[in-house]
């Protein structure tokens, strides 16, 4: 039997209420762990795994395993004596590869039919704000006086919807700076992302239809890099309900994303931290 043992090490929890998904498997929340890539050496990748051990339910008879996947390559490492910051080396990953990661909590004694105790979804390594800036430079606004009293509107008239424009009410922009005002980012940006994603999903029947030099393509590429989110597969492009769910998931993940420049806080946390 998989007996619970007394907690003897700092960082190992004796009991904590877990959250479970519909399979009765626990979930490790994405916000409680993240990975950065420290470097590459020949075919080896050096990873730093950061863990919030107060929040991850780790018992002594359990092991944490980090998995990495990239272009059909798979590697896993058991995290011995997990610490808040862990150096991990994995073989078989070419230079500059950008794997997806997954953290799993497994029983150390394999007597439970190989069942997972808890896990994250697949996620990507955390990037610096400079890298994010490069990826999000498509997020440009056009200030107009043609949208009545709307604060913002998406214009789909350009290039058959390939280049959606984010129109911002000029009067609004005079008082609030949409590029830098956290209120705009926290309260309005998620809705903009959702409308653009849904707009793309409705207008195009496959990724093949979208030219890579367009804003629509850049939006999809940006969302595809959100941790734990991936574009609809070829067959899912025909399933509108599935695409609506995916758009909602993308917005949720975006809202939960922590930003280095905000002290590793989400947009909402940054917004709430300020007294207005």
């Amino acid at each position, binding site marked *: 039997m998989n007996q619970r043992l007394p907690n003897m090490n700092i960082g190992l929890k004796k009991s904590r209420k877990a959250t479970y998904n519909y399979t009765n498997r626990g979930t490790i929340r994405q916000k409680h762990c993240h990975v950065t890539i420290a470097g590459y050496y020949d075919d080896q990748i050096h990873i730093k795994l950061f863990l919030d051990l107060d929040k991850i339910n780790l018992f002594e008879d359990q092991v944490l395993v980090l998995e990495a996947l990239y*272009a059909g390559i798979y590697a896993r490492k058991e995290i011995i004596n997990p610490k808040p910051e862990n150096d991990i080396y994995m073989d078989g990953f070419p230079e500059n590869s950008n794997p997806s990661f997954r953290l799993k909590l497994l029983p150390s004694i394999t007597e439970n039919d*190989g*069942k997972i105790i808890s896990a994250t979804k697949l996620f990507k390594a955390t990037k610096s704000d400079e890298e994010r800036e490069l990826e999000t430079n498509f997020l440009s606004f056009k200030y107009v006086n043609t949208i009545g009293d709307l604060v913002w509107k998406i214009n789909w008239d350009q290039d058959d919807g390939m280049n959606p424009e984010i129109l911002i009410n000029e009067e609004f922009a005079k008082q609030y700076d949409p590029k830098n005002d956290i209120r705009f980012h926290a309260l309005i940006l998620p809705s903009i992302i959702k409308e653009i994603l849904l707009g793309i999903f409705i207008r195009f029947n496959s990724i093949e239809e979208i030219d890579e030099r367009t804003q629509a393509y850049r939006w999809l590429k940006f969302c595809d890099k959100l941790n734990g989110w*991936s574009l609809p597969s*070829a*067959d899912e492009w025909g399933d509108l309900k599935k695409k609506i769910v995916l758009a909602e998931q993308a917005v949720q993940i975006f809202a939960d994303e922590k930003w280095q420049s905000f002290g590793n806080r989400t947009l909402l946390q940054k917004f709430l931290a300020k007294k207005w």
Partner: protein
Amino acid sequence: MASVKIRKFNRSGLQVFEDLLDDLISNPSHAEWNTSLKMKIDKILFDNEITSEFGDYEIDRDKEFENRYDFGEYLYGIFKSKHVEKEIGMLSWLALLFFDQICKKSGKNNRLQILSKYRYIPEIENSWRFYRHLVLTPILVWQRLKEDSILLLSNPLYESGDAVEQLMSRQDFIANDKILTVARKLYIDEIKRKPKSRAFSDSEPGNAKRLARDIVPQLSMTYDLYEAPVNQILTLLPDEFDKWKN
């Protein structure tokens, strides 16, 4: 046999290749497979200004392949388990070397049908496009599946195949040796050494796409499929897969 050293494009070379693709797409008459186009391609392939040797690998440029399986086997024989995923310059060069075979020819003038550029110049960081490259995927699949690659590579060189792309796009399918072994057991006809009839058919219960698209993600939520024994995974599959087990 015309053996040549494998080369790779530099940045300028990739641009030249891209320009060639643009030209062939916008001027279909330029895409007729004739001496003029062959000479143009040869000039690009061996231009020292835009290409250089890639290691010490040799390749028979005149070799003809029946399908992607043969192509993958030949390239696997050259590279073995070397990681070539990031070698954009070399993979693009190989795409141009075998251009007349990885493009479908049509009409009496053998006009090449040019597909999207990422079929020829890989987009490695693009998770939904890297596996669509017409040279990289046969190598990757052969590195994973060896002789059982026939499960995914029975198409002609120019045809990636929707089913294959759906399977390749599922990270937990293509990266998991145990799941690939399950797929081999279920869907390869061991006597004929080819995929069983209707293995990829959407209307067939328990087909390979359903395994990759629905069942593996579901089971992955509960089970550590990378460590689970193959026989255990087989017993976890729903009844609809029973008929494939025989």
